[in-house]
């Protein structure tokens, strides 16, 4: 049995945008880039917990809506002078659907 959870159709996330997925332990932001890749990160900026899903997505980064920190979607790491990191989770696209690895729920329990 696969460990991937079908979340939604890719079309439901705007290009260069994000949507939130609720879990029992808080929200995960699922991003879609201009090149149609998907990434899943905790929806809380390492600075002051700004909701990253609401930021402007450019390349494979998102700019936090609260104070403009730039976070890498691949590593969750803050870019430039700023320091900090948010958790990232495996995500992928299959047949136009967005999938998250079930393990991320467990990882969140451990975290």
């Amino acid at each position, binding site marked *: 049995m696969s460990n991937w959870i079908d979340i939604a159709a890719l079309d439901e996330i705007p290009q260069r945008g994000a949507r939130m*997925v609720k879990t029992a332990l808080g929200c995960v932001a699922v991003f879609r880039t201009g*090149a149609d890749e998907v990434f899943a990160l905790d929806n809380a900026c390492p600075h002051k917990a700004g909701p990253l899903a609401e930021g402007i997505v450019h390349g494979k980064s998102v700019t936090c809506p609260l104070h403009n920190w730039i976070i890498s979607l691949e590593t969750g790491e803050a870019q430039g002078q700023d320091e900090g990191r948010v958790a990232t989770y495996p995500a992928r696209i299959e047949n136009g659907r967005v999938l998250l690895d079930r393990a991320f729920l467990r990882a969140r329990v451990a975290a």
Partner: protein
Amino acid sequence: MTQKLVVIGAGMASGRVLEHLFDAGADYDVTLFNAEARGNYNRIMLSPVLSGDKTYDDIVTHDADWYAEHGVTCRFGEHVTEIDRDAKTVTGQNGTVPYDKLLIATGSAPFIIPVQGKDLPGVITYRDLDDTNAMIDAAARGGKAVVIGGGLLGLEAAAGLVERGMDVTVLHLMGHLMERQLDESAGFLLRRDLHDKGVKVICQASTAAILGDTHVEGVMLEDNTGLEADLVVMAVGIRPETRLATDAGLSVARGVEVNAQMQTSDPDILAVGECVEFDGHLFGLVAPLYDQAKVVARTLLDEPAAFVVKELSTKLKVTGCDLFSAGDFADGEGREDIVFRDPMRGVYRRLVVEDDILVGAVMYGDTADSSWYFGLIRDKTDISEMRDTLIFGPAYQGGTPLDPLAAVAALPRDAEICGCNGICKGQIEDAIAGGATDLGTVRATTKASGSCGTCTGLVEQVLAVTLGDDFVVPAAASICGCTDMTHEDVRRMIKSQKLTSMPAVWQECGWKTSCGCHVCRPALNFYLLADWPLEYQDDPQSRFINERKHANIQKDGTFSVVPRMWGGITTPDELRAIADAADKYMVPTVKVTGGQRIDLLGVKSEDLPDIWADLNAAGMVSGHAYSKGLRTVKTCVGTDHCRFGTQDSTGLGIKLEKELWGSWTPHKLKLAVSGCPRNCAEATCKDIGVVCVDSGYQVSIGGAAGMDVKETELLVQVPTEQDAINVIKAVTQLYRENAKYLDRIYKWMGKVGLDWIKKRIVDDLDERAALVDRFELSQSIYRKDPWAEHSSQKADSYRPLANLSLEAAE
């Protein structure tokens, strides 16, 4: 002993297999079935046949003599209907033959979108010679063609049909053409070149139905746009032709599954071409099929061989549209983008490097070096030595740096540089040739940059381009790291070069990144919608969250909701509806704002569409408390109640707010109207303020009461209310058209001068009227309630994509 080989499908792949087999002297007795009533031909050359550059005879790869020479039994025009693996026979429409080895080479079938009218005569796909001939016949009758699908096949069909005199429109579902092979920038250039050839392109077009009674008559889109059509070509994709294999019980996923020896789950049955799936990959281009064909021949000869998947590259066979793409060109962490644009020659090149290896390339306009780049990608060559000059291709190893003046150098002589005085590049060049070698003299002789001054940067660049090293451009702050141009330069370019999309700006202004950043995208989005309200479509993803979600984000990630109260006037019913909403959505804070309305603070994102719908139902609309646009028009009670009032200040405030609401401006725009010079509405510290007097209305602009505090300056006193409204619309439009993004009116006024503004709005009544007209044109699109639209059409986007709260972790 001679073995019997039966081949199903005489396509590009099986043709190659047979050549390799016979070249190696294999001892096989071959029967070749083909559903098409002909043998092997070069399918990819159908496009030149369609455009008239080639004939069918030119593209035949194997003729009757060749089949006879190799003893191939041809059964063309005959469908194979069944494979019997137990009996080891194949049955065609005209009878059964036995096999020792069987090769399935059935290619793929065009995908047909399941819409009403798809079966009407006049709707065709693009796959074989019959389709091509059908298009040629249809084109001979003239008329209109609609091609559904803006990928490789669709565009080649469109170009061919235009060549044959049809009026062609391409409908493409995605935001830019060939999105699987090209990025937005290359997609923009392709669209422009196709447009020049006469091919119209509509992107984000979703087909709802094909219309017609006995023959196709038109196409209807989801947004209810109707297009006339005498011919519809469907080119939306292909699907491996696997029916025979499935019926025979072979293992089939999306394609017929094969191992590296090209054997299916039955070792005596091989498969090749577009019908196969290998290691999760499907194939749609000939290069890998030719590799497969070699392996098939070796396997049939009992020799060891293995197929491996290699990098692919794409080109488009449309003359005048030179493009190339290969590898993976998504940008990101650990990957370096090297971008080169030459606006003069319409060239765009983007290389993606990861760990000193070139992993992807997109090229448009000049693809001469494409095979060199493709070699670097395929061979995973270490490029660290040539990294700095890599973008210039093999000839330039040692090369020249990128030229920041290229965009201005590329402008034609009739490109308008100075909008105020209507001075074109050519006039400036002539002045320079006539001896004006610095900004001051150019200004004195041509007037260019002599009025508002925002084109100074461009004039200096024209000087630099014309005089070369004799003129040094003073350093000016560019918008961001993506470009060397300033806001002012880019605004002039957008106007004078009629740039109506973001990719157009990126290309023509030589952007150094592939798709901008969070600093330049919101600015460009504003400039484009302000200058081209009809042509440009607002891009929510280039907006800061508040404007994208039509609510202000708070520090805890909740939002505030501020309904409009026209001119600060409300009613008991509205107040009751606000109170009800505050209760229903458990709003923690209800505050009266300084803009004379009520703020509901602390609303959850997912509740926004519902609270808006409730407020809409009570007749209220968005207050745009979040926008770089019109916020509020504050008023005093004026003649209605006040003993000092000279005019109906409240009434004028309401009228102004109803005219101006929904408009986007470079920064926020706040107005106020006071009924007498006692100025209770504090009109003289607003962006635009009106103070009523006995003889009329004093309109003043450029106030501020934030980090800077400024009193407004008088623009004009006018006698009637309608004059006041027109002056305010005109000045708002002038500000929209000229100011730098994020400059409030007072900052803009500091740069262009109050006199410059007066000249246009007070002295020149034609200009005032023209500005009002342009403002109204823009408002015809933007004067609407975003809350109503979002709560009815986009409510889902405010809610979580999925809720896994109940999903067990273990």
